[in-house]
């Protein structure tokens, strides 16, 4: 991006849906957001990935004008979030972590009121409400109050509420946390449809597979900072190593297998279970040599598998703070 010259840079700027420089938000002694830079191109799905308490939601709250930044600046389509709040609010919609709908009202009433607030007439708003309820498979529950809704239904209604008038930039704070796998896939489809019709999506997630599946680019957030940024492939490459798992037919061979693996792969192998030997896999070609060496040594294998980096490993690698990240990763 740096080498694109002035013209490229200019075009890049006008194409940015979100642009943040050195964003800071402090609560007491806690620097919840600690100098965050973000450049999110228009038309993409961008994920903030991080454990609980990393500062993802606070970043969202600042970008959506719910909180004033204590330092730095952020622009939404070129409009400052601190000074042009009303313009920014006309460009965004937010779907929060705690479903932001009124549980004392029915699904239809909720959507109708949001529609009327957005400038639709009462009849337009109820027509739009009916359309959205069908689209999100909630038409049977339209008249029920939300205290009788399941978590997944509420989440879908919350998302529907954000789409009454489709905003150019849509914030989704942990859109699939706590959803069953089927609803999760439906949610992903809805998100892709929004992008197809011209919206930009900024979502937060704790799940690497979700970021992997959906996002064009990912920023990994930890302790209120962006610790890594890039496409999912770039991040995995940076985290590095997949793990090679060798499950032995006979556990008596374990020590010998470990020795051979270390020798052939030139890495430190370990033996987490009696009949399991694992080793980081930096060069996939050398695995062939290892398998041949094991056959020559008459060591029989039950299974061979390769494990992609997990979220825990991403954090351990990116924060250089293994224990801490592991503890929080496990909690998340």
């Amino acid at each position, binding site marked *: 991006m740096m080498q694109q010259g002035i013209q490229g840079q200019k075009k890049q700027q006008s194409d940015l849906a979100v642009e943040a420089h050195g964003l800071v938000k402090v609560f007491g002694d806690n620097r919840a957001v600690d100098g965050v830079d973000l450049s999110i191109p228009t038309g993409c799905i961008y994920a903030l990935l991080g454990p609980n308490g990393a500062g993802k939601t606070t970043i969202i709250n600042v970008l959506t004008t719910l909180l004033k930044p204590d330092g730095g600046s952020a622009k939404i*389509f070129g409009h400052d979030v601190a000074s042009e709040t*009303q313009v920014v609010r*006309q460009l965004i919609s937010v779907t*929060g972590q705690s479903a932001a*709908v009124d549980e*004392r009202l029915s699904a239809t*009433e909720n959507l109708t*009121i949001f529609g009327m607030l*957005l400038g639709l007439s009462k009849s337009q708003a109820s027509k739009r409400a009916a359309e959205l309820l069908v689209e999100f498979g909630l038409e049977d529950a339209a008249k029920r109050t939300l205290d009788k809704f399941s978590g997944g239904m509420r989440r879908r209604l919350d998302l529907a509420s954000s789409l009454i008038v489709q*905003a150019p930039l849509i914030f989704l704070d942990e859109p699939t946390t706590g959803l069953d796998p089927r609803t999760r896939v439906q949610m992903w489809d809805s998100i892709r449809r929004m992008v197809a019709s011209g919206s930009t999506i900024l979502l937060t997630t704790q799940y690497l597979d979700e970021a992997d599946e959906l996002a064009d680019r990912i920023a990994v957030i930890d302790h209120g900072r962006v610790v890594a940024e890039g496409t999912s492939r770039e991040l995995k490459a940076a985290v590095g190593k997949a793990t090679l798992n060798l499950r032995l037919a006979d556990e008596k061979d374990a020590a010998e297998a470990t020795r051979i693996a270390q020798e052939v792969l030139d890495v430190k192998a370990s033996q987490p279970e009696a009949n399991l030997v694992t080793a980081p896999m930096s060069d996939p070609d050398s695995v062939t040599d290892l398998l041949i060496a094991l056959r020559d040594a008459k060591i029989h294998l039950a299974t061979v598998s390769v494990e992609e980096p997990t979220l825990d490993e991403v954090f351990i690698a990116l924060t250089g703070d293994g224990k801490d990240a592991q503890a929080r990763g496990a909690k998340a």
Partner: protein
Amino acid sequence: MSPQIVPGAERKLKNRISLQMTVSNSLTMAYRTLLLIRRTPQQLFDVTIQPILFTVMFAFLFGGAISGSVTGYLPIIIPGILAQTAITASMGTGVQLREDMDKGVFYRFKSMPIARIATLTGPLVADIVRYSIATGLTLVMGYLLGFRWASADGALLAGFLSVFAAWCLSWVFALLGVIMKTAQAVQGISAAILFPLSFLSGAFVPTKTLPWWLQDFVNVNPLTYVVSAVRQLFTQGTVGADFWLSLIGSIVIVLVFAPLTLRAYMRKA
């Protein structure tokens, strides 16, 4: 390919909310409050059960002792209860505002391109309906017990004054609702303010029966003027000094508390 929305960078937008939009947003929020009331009719207990219960209870409890008969006591008690229930109802405004502000849906309202003040003004407007119910029911109960007003115009104006005074006072409770942390706290403080104000106001007993120091309090209590004005409208059908004092006093309360409430609210919201 799905239909495309207008790209964010190409939209021409204003960074301010027009007055028209503020009014329209407030009315939508008022509509929302009325829907909430319809969904949870318990919210109407203070403006339905209370006027019915208090009117009957106080009329028969104190009627004989204070005025010699229930019918004789009605001209004292009905204006008193009218003012009292409307004003007690205004206390609910603060409690409900606090509860509403703690709901998740408030986060959505805050991020929407709407007049922020609408989430405050909407419920305040909708509450006029509650005060009107309270006032109407008290009048019906009074009528059933045998109370007769001097003129229909006077009774109507008396009803209007009660509702208006209650609405003005609701800004005080709205301020409590905004600055206090929990709905219970709002309830507690509001009740502590409201009980002495409503009972020590000439609403239930003639002021001259009270010890002098209590008379002094009653005479500076703004509610006394509302009660006297309402009483005069009912019994004589005329507008007196108390009416104008009540009206001006109510307006002063709004002029003082509305800006305070709005400022506290905007800081929090």
